[in-house]
């Protein structure tokens, strides 16, 4: 009778347990793709659920994934700002001449996904985050700009450069 049972504030407010059970995979994979490595992803994921626990009473029931995504990106941004103070990120340029070749023509979808995951890891942190928020999460440039706190024009130019770099990586030797 004293188990941690489900309890609802209102029909639209899920319990922490429900959120954890249903969304842990989503949060972790979003963190993993943005961070690019399991250690940082784990830190982000743990912090996200601490915040979910702490701020669940402020959740207004207006889209759980949107809320979790916002928390995850906020934690991610806090982490990269801290890391960039320690080791500033180098932005790598890209040229059209580096994207010759026919990447993906012989790859099936799963193979393309795996190679793309590896190629994403070669991007700079912010570029990768923007690419994930667009390519996986399907957000608009304005939404990405708001989440990452960068200008819309920067989102657009970084996504373009990110794609060219990804093509270049996929075209190159594995």
């Amino acid at each position, binding site marked *: *009778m*004293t*188990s*941690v*049972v*489900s*309890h609802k*504030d209102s029909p639209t407010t899920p*319990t*922490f*347990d429900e959120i*954890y059970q249903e969304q*842990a*995979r989503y*949060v*972790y*994979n979003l963190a*993993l*793709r943005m961070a690019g490595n*399991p250690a940082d992803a*784990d830190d982000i*994921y*743990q912090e996200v*659920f*601490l915040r979910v*626990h*702490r701020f*669940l*009473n402020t959740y207004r029931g207006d889209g759980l994934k949107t809320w979790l995504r916002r928390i995850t990106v906020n934690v991610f941004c806090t982490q990269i700002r801290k890391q960039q103070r320690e080791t500033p990120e180098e932005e790598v340029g890209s040229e*059209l001449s580096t*994207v010759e070749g*026919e*990447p*993906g*023509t012989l790859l099936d*979808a*799963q193979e*393309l*996904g*795996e*190679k*793309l*995951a590896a190629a*994403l890891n070669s991007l700079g942190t912010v570029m990768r985050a923007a690419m994930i928020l*667009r*390519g*996986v999460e399907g957000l*608009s*440039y304005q939404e990405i700009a708001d989440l990452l706190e960068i200008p819309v024009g920067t989102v*657009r*130019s970084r*996504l*373009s450069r990110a*794609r*060219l770099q*990804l*093509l270049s990586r*996929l075209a190159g030797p594995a």
Partner: protein
Amino acid sequence: MSCAPFQELLSAALDGELNSAEQAQLDQHLADCSACRSLQERLRRLETGFAHLPEASPPPLRSRATIAPAPAKQGSAAGAAAIWSAVLAAAASAAVLFWNPTGPAPRGSELYFSSHQLLQQHPPEQRLAVSEFRSPPLHGKVLDHGQLAFEIHLDSHQRACKDLQLEVQYDFDGDGQVDRSEVYEAFDTDDKEGWEVYTRRHGPVSQQGEMKDFVGGTLACRLKNASGYLQLRQGNSRLVLPYHLGV
């Protein structure tokens, strides 16, 4: 004409983020440029990869135990109760046991216990996974003649837990050294379902070191001899530190 300016347009077009003038400009260029048409095709193929990125299983949540000031003075206990929701009929009577009813109300700053390990719903035979709680960095002045008070709401379910003891360790300056420690009188839980409250009845049974101001140091609380499926009720379990924290 250089294709470089059109690369960004190609990317933005893929995302549906071009205005009509830009789209017209791009269309005109694509009509004349086979290299950019080829790039457009490759970019489209690239997009299909995002739906097939490999997925990883999330790791378990780490054991994270803290004692920290309540986030909002009024809403904290209610909020925590809503989250943890392990509310029993017995809790109402347990609340009567708050502190020592004949003594003065404890003075100082409140810190609430919080343990994320309780989410994991341990099987009954497992030891309490979290028995140590650590505060974030604290700053504050010690109150004259103040003394620490605590109430820890516990339920060990159908297994009694004997000789539970609260040990409090102070690291006043955050150098990692324990500057003061206090161990309080032991408490036994019963073997019945329902919340019980472990409070300070007497002074510490042992103590070492002097009380000092907190200068970025931390407080650690340990429940010694905690065993079994011991649940700690959050939102109610708290310390009152004889400090004016946050100065």
